[in-house]
């Protein structure tokens, strides 16, 4: 039995735990390859034309897995944090997958609902593992290990190696930022220009939550709340020289949170912020030019003003 996991969407958050879960049951886990241009094209052709870039990328990975596996694991993520909800796309993803192509292998869709303190959703993982041929004890221990992993992921940040030089905060969904093809190699390009990119998963969730709580209305999407908190933390502590807000075309939460952050940072005076919108037609040249301009501006202002910007007068370039 081979169970596929698409290397897209929330794989970049929870993928390791899912793979570990399947391996604990003695099932061969097949994770799709890193995104390629062909996958994005195939996904964009098959998926609904109005969905966001990550769903199109996800569809491309599904089509890649179609011939290679006996079933696919697409967990339904309902919430990632207590008191928040996930983006509707995560909630409807298994159903969208099933209507993507009639010839797809069966879709296993247990829920992840970390906001539910009673963990009733863990039963769904148990039934999935029983259906995959796990013994009672083996299934229970695989589920327990998964829960432990997810819970640890909820409160921990990934550690970053200490780096000197300019730091750039990259605020974007992990499935955009960590996907080399979809983001057109954004992180590597930033590194190539002599700066160290810091992503949202490197900020402690509790710290992000503290800063997100200062907003005048609570952001109810779990990941966006963490992202906004991280941006406010970077900006208020001046721990980065500039912030790149990376969103994808037709990202629903991104459209509002982007506007909110631009406004909030403009009010309190912040490090410069640039918005980058990705879609399947994004060209490298446009991205490189804008990145170079942004980083050059940061370097120059660092030389002249010692990296400090007057509050309110921050050149918050967007576009």
């Amino acid at each position: 039995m081979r169970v596929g996991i698409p290397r897209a969407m929330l794989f970049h958050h929870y993928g390791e735990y899912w793979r570990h879960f399947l391996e604990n049951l003695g099932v061969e886990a097949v994770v799709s390859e890193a995104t390629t241009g062909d996958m994005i094209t195939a996904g964009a052709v098959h998926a609904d034309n109005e969905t966001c870039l990550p769903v199109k990328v996800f569809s491309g990975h599904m089509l890649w897995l179609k011939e290679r596996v006996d079933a696919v694991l697409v967990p339904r993520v309902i919430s990632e944090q207590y008191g928040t909800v996930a983006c509707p796309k995560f909630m409807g993803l298994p159903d969208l997958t099933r209507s993507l192509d009639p010839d797809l292998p069966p879709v296993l869709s247990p829920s992840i609902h970390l906001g539910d303190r009673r963990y009733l959703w863990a039963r769904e993982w148990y039934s999935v593992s029983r259906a995959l041929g796990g013994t009672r004890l083996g299934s229970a221990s695989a589920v327990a290990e998964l829960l432990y992993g997810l819970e640890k992921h909820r409160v921990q940040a990934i550690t970053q190696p200490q780096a000197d030089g300019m730091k750039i905060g990259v605020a974007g969904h992990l499935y955009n930022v960590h996907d080399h093809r979809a983001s057109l190699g954004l992180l590597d390009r930033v590194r190539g220009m002599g700066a160290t990119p810091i992503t949202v998963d490197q900020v402690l969730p509790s710290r992000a939550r503290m800063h997100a709580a200062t907003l005048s209305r609570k952001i109810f999407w779990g990941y966006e709340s963490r992202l906004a908190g991280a941006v406010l933390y970077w900006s208020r502590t001046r721990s980065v020289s500039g912030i790149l807000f990376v969103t994808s075309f037709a990202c629903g939460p991104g459209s509002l949170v982007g506007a909110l952050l631009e406004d909030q940072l403009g009010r309190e005076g912040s490090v410069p912020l640039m918005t980058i919108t990705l879609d399947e037609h994004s060209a490298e040249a446009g991205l490189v030019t804008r990145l170079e301009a942004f980083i050059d501006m940061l370097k120059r202002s660092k030389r002249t003003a010692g990296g400090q910007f007057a509050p309110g007068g921050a050149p918050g370039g967007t576009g």
Partner: protein
Amino acid sequence: MKIAVPRMGNLSLIIRDLARRFDLETLETPPFSEQNMEIGSALAPEFACLPLKAVLGSFVQVLEMGADTLVTGGGHGPCRFGYYGEIQKRILEREGRRFRMVVLEPPSVSIKAFHDSIRTLLPRQRVSLPALLKELSQTLSKVVVFDKLEKRALALRGLEAEPGAVDAALEEAQAIVARAYTRKEIEEARLEAEARFMQLPIESGRPHLKVGLVGEIFVVLEPFFNFDIDRWLGRRGAVVERSVNIADTVFPMGRNPVFGYTEHAVARAADPYLTHEVGGDGLLTVGASVIFARRGFDAIVHFLPFTCMPEVIAKGVLSRVSSELGIPILSLSIDEQTGRAGVETRLEALLDLAWSNKSKRDFAADYASAGA
């Protein structure tokens, strides 16, 4: 305090009723227009969905008319609507406008938040809790009557013997109900209004199409954005039924008195296709489409604002509903640049397809009965 509330279908009738009950000074929001969409899209974030831009545009207009309190709805997601108020407030403040924004939280967030947000408009000193509950429940029963009248008009418009008769009757009926105040008066007004519909000359034998109307509430209810789909379909002799209504949205416990199927029944109908709530009206869209298909409707029209998150999922799922249940479904996504001609051409094609399906079915039925 001059209060302004965005427009949406029958909402203006309801606001008028509430203003009378609680003695509030309200300002009629101007109807949506090209001009107001231009203002809204210039100020709003580029990828925000249509209702945000439209409502923002009308807020600017109504602030210029002298309103000082803007009222809008809240929520706890995952639909973007719950965050509209905050974004609109920030944008308008940046524009240098002075106003107060009141976000009415729905009871689903928490009863306390719901009550507190009402109390910002109607302080305890002015309206006691029993009076508040009584008046609100009376308004609620009125909302249900308004929407039931509209449901009747949708069903009759395609069969009217003389053009415009149903619209005239609906207007009269709404005026009759709008005058009523107590629960007893509302019930009497309902009977009187329904009697008004009974007298209409109807050609019930005329061959007609049955069309289901599903989608996101704002674009389905606002004639400016759906190109007056109710009357457009009515003129072409279609009997229409709609899945979303204001009354169903505000009625407690998911009873959906106007649509007639409880939330539970809708979720069960949607089951093989969409198995979880996705926010907004997404689940209702899929469930209602399945219900309409099972009831033998000829076509379904699905309206959504461009990039609406719940409805985009519904749209993806509806393609499977359409092929498995054999019913033509047309998804129309609306944004500020959607043109009337494009929408009408596609709707005409949908009706043609539905007619040809229907005549094929009728022919097969005739043939079978003649052969037997």
